[in-house]
């Protein structure tokens, strides 16, 4: 079972406290995200909308590559880095 490290933005502190990194197990991206939400169920409403889609202004990167998490079957390597960020826009 591959292990991935999920990084969370500080802005999500009201949901998860001081947690910034979460180590999860999952051979696929979908399983890793499911493990994250099982560990921290309060994240679900902030990361995903009522259709279980990544919220429009939430960004997700897997090893630096942006993804909208539409393909949960993507296989993960040991040590994969998954990063969630809030989008930055405007000036």
């Amino acid at each position, binding site marked *: 079972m591959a292990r991935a490290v999920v990084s969370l933005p500080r*802005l*999500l502190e*009201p*949901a998860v406290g001081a947690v910034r990194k979460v180590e999860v197990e999952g051979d696929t991206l979908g399983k890793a995200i499911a493990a994250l939400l099982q560990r921290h*169920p*309060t994240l679900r*409403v*902030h*990361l995903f*909308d*009522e*259709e*279980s889609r990544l*919220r429009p*202004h*939430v960004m997700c990167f897997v090893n630096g590559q942006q993804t909208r998490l539409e393909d949960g079957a993507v296989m993960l390597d040991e040590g994969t880095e998954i990063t969630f960020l*809030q*989008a930055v826009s405007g000036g």
Partner: protein
Amino acid sequence: MKTLAVGTEKGSYLLRHDGEWQVSGPQFPGWKVTAFGRAPDGTYLAGLASNWFGASVHRSPDLVEWEQVENGPSFPEGMDRKLKQIWAFSTNGEVLYAGVDDAGLFRSDDNGLNWAPVEALNEHSSRKSWYPGAGGMCAHHILHDGRRMWVGISAVGVFRSEDDGASFERFDSGVPPTVGPDEDETTAEGWCVHGLTADPENPNRIWRQDHRGVYRTTDGGDNWERIEEGLPANFGFAIGRDHASGSLFVVPLEADTNRLPVNGHLAAYRSQNDGDAWEVSGKGWPEAAQFTGVLRKSITLDQEGGVAFGTTGGAVYLSEDTGDTWTALPFAFPRIFTLANL
């Protein structure tokens, strides 16, 4: 007033009075804090919203340590409704209610840990014709009297339940609709109620600040009458009542097209005769023009003579003598969504 919670566009702040007013915060930095309340067991509640993340309910035993509720108000997956904002908390006995945007009512029987939709309102037969106001389509005021309940929804109207939320009917007779039917009548008439307050000694007496006027009812909403004598404008959001004296307070704004005090003259208006007539509430108002608004949840009364409201410009105005004298507190906050006496 001993503790005022200030919910703003960027976090919340606590104002405590101990000889002089002290401010602490922000809590929830970067988050919109849109509602405060207390659960039946006294637990503090806060509603959060965000430009990026979802809306959520948070609980605290002491206003210091907060924990997000796991099973907060939410619409079923697959429904086109979105939970955008928590607008109001209220309690009726051991039951806690939350009003939200998209317009909906939720109840909790365990002090806010778990929430369930109030289907009779959320799935009301008229829902397909509900229409949002500029502030969204939100259930923002909830009143109780035993098994009776009133819910104000913008821009839809005032709904009343006689059976503890098992069924609801809309009661807006006497108030002209704000939203008219569209050409193909897919949009029915809508009433843009902005605020509600009631007399706890006689809950049939309710006052409402609407988009197009100020009204009262003495029969629980069956009939409403306009009460605007002395007001510089009939538009506004905030309305509140000091129950001991019966004094009513509103903060008039010019119009929906210009949601600012008329000519910059910011002041609460008070009625001491149940709304028959209004006048500027006491003294202490700024002489310089104040081009700022006051939102619907930004007024609070402690029922011991304290009245306070916050502005979109981040100021808090306070009276400790039921509106005879007013003071602007020496703090500037982000846009104030809600003010609560906790």
